[in-house]
């Protein structure tokens, strides 16, 4: 049993380092949660002039793993379920931010199945209906944005907007109108823009795995809320 001393010392050091880093990570998460406290649901609602209709006011959109349920992850007995809704009319048009993240886990004999439901969008409601459309950034930080609807691409008449966004709709007149309103969304280009107009509501759709990411997009929450409200007013009075 004549082992060199480092055979015992190094594993012990590695285990100690692992615990140290784990504790440090928790501390860092808590610090980030504090640093970005203005992205907690309650404070974000106040910033945007919205009311928290449902959900945990302490849930942090920027540091989601600060939430105990998300940090723990889904188990067979307990799913992760975060459901938040903020609503109001800060700039005249009704505006809402909804966030749903549900994860279920089912451990079988030879496989584990995860089911995930995710929906995060900020939407403004127009007073009158308008033709449906979809707008996506041509360049986004995480690859092409997947479209939800199959409309033909229309020129907006604004070359700067056409260079930045792909506007798809069946109404040329609507594309011209979007050419006037979309410049405000250029500020969100660093995150990526995905707008869907369903005829009554204009939604800015966010994702947790692709552009526009929730954290990157909500970093511009004020600009987004103002731009969506302006767009809804222009579209539907």
């Amino acid at each position, binding site marked *: 049993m004549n082992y060199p001393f*480092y055979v015992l010392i190094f594993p012990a050091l590695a285990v100690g*380092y692992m615990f140290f880093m784990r504790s440090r990570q928790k501390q860092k998460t808590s610090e980030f949660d504090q640093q970005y406290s203005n992205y907690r649901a309650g404070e974000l609602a*106040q*910033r*945007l*002039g919205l009311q928290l209709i449902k959900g945990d006011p302490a849930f942090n959109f920027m540091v989601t793993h600060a939430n105990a349920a998300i940090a723990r992850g889904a188990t067979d007995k307990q799913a992760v379920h975060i459901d938040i809704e903020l609503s109001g009319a*800060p*700039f005249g048009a009704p505006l809402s931010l909804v966030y749903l993240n549900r994860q279920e886990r089912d451990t079988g004999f030879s496989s584990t199945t995860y089911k995930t439901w995710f929906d995060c969008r900020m939407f403004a409601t127009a007073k009158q209906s308008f033709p449906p459309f979809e707008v996506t950034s041509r360049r986004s930080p995480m690859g092409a944005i997947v479209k939800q609807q199959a409309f033909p691409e229309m020129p907006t008449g604004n070359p700067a907007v056409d260079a930045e966004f792909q506007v798809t709709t069946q109404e040329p007149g609507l594309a011209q109108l979007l050419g006037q309103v979309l410049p405000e969304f250029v*500020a969100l280009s*660093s995150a990526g823009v995905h707008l869907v107009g369903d005829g009554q509501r204009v939604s800015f759709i966010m994702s947790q795995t692709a552009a526009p990411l929730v954290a990157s997009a909500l*970093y*511009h929450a*004020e*600009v987004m*809320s*103002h731009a969506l409200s302006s767009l809804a007013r222009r579209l539907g009075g």
Partner: protein
Amino acid sequence: MAVAEAQYLHQDPELCCQYCGRREKLPNDAAERHRYLRLRLLQVSQAREATEAPLRAFKTMNDAWMPSLFLVGAMGIYQSWSFFQNWEVLIKLAPEQALFGGVPLAVMFGMLSGWLGMRRAYAKKLRPLLRARPPQAPGLAARCRNCGGELPGVRAPQVICQHCNASNLLDDALTVNAAALLQQEAQAYQQQLLPWTRDANVYQAPLRAFYLFGALGAVAALFAVAGLLLLLVRAS
């Protein structure tokens, strides 16, 4: 009446009397214009933060450096000790095997030199960009590097602008080199206003191009003639 700033974008600012405290709403058009300006300031501020985002990674690395230095240093010292203990064995090995023994040392010194390089690049390239603008006259406040607004008078290495939230570094260069910094700022404004003053060398470009391309053409012609002569000599 002074404008009482609205805390959030959706709120309208109010006019507030500094003597009796009476508050009045701003007219709608003025409130809308005020909101538009706040929105623009917010966008500029967010664009600046996005541009400066890599600085956070630098700060994180800088903060984590001390514990990492102890860990890597301890490993490096042990490796050095082991390396020198076994040098007699190492020199008898094939070079590639002996070199393998030096890899951990290379990693440690690589991390150290990388950190020193990072510090140097920060000091040389970024520090001047993050420094506050000097006061326009002695006795006045230093100004924000981003919006040019007056900074609060504090004794700290870093101060946050109350207007645009940009962080500004305060160092002795602000007082020692105030005149030079002000002159640089004036030059930058002048270059923005008068683009033709940006680079005086650009006016010499045609003349330089004449000499450069003339020389290149002459050399190319010389080679071509020499080659032709060589061919003719060989052919005859």
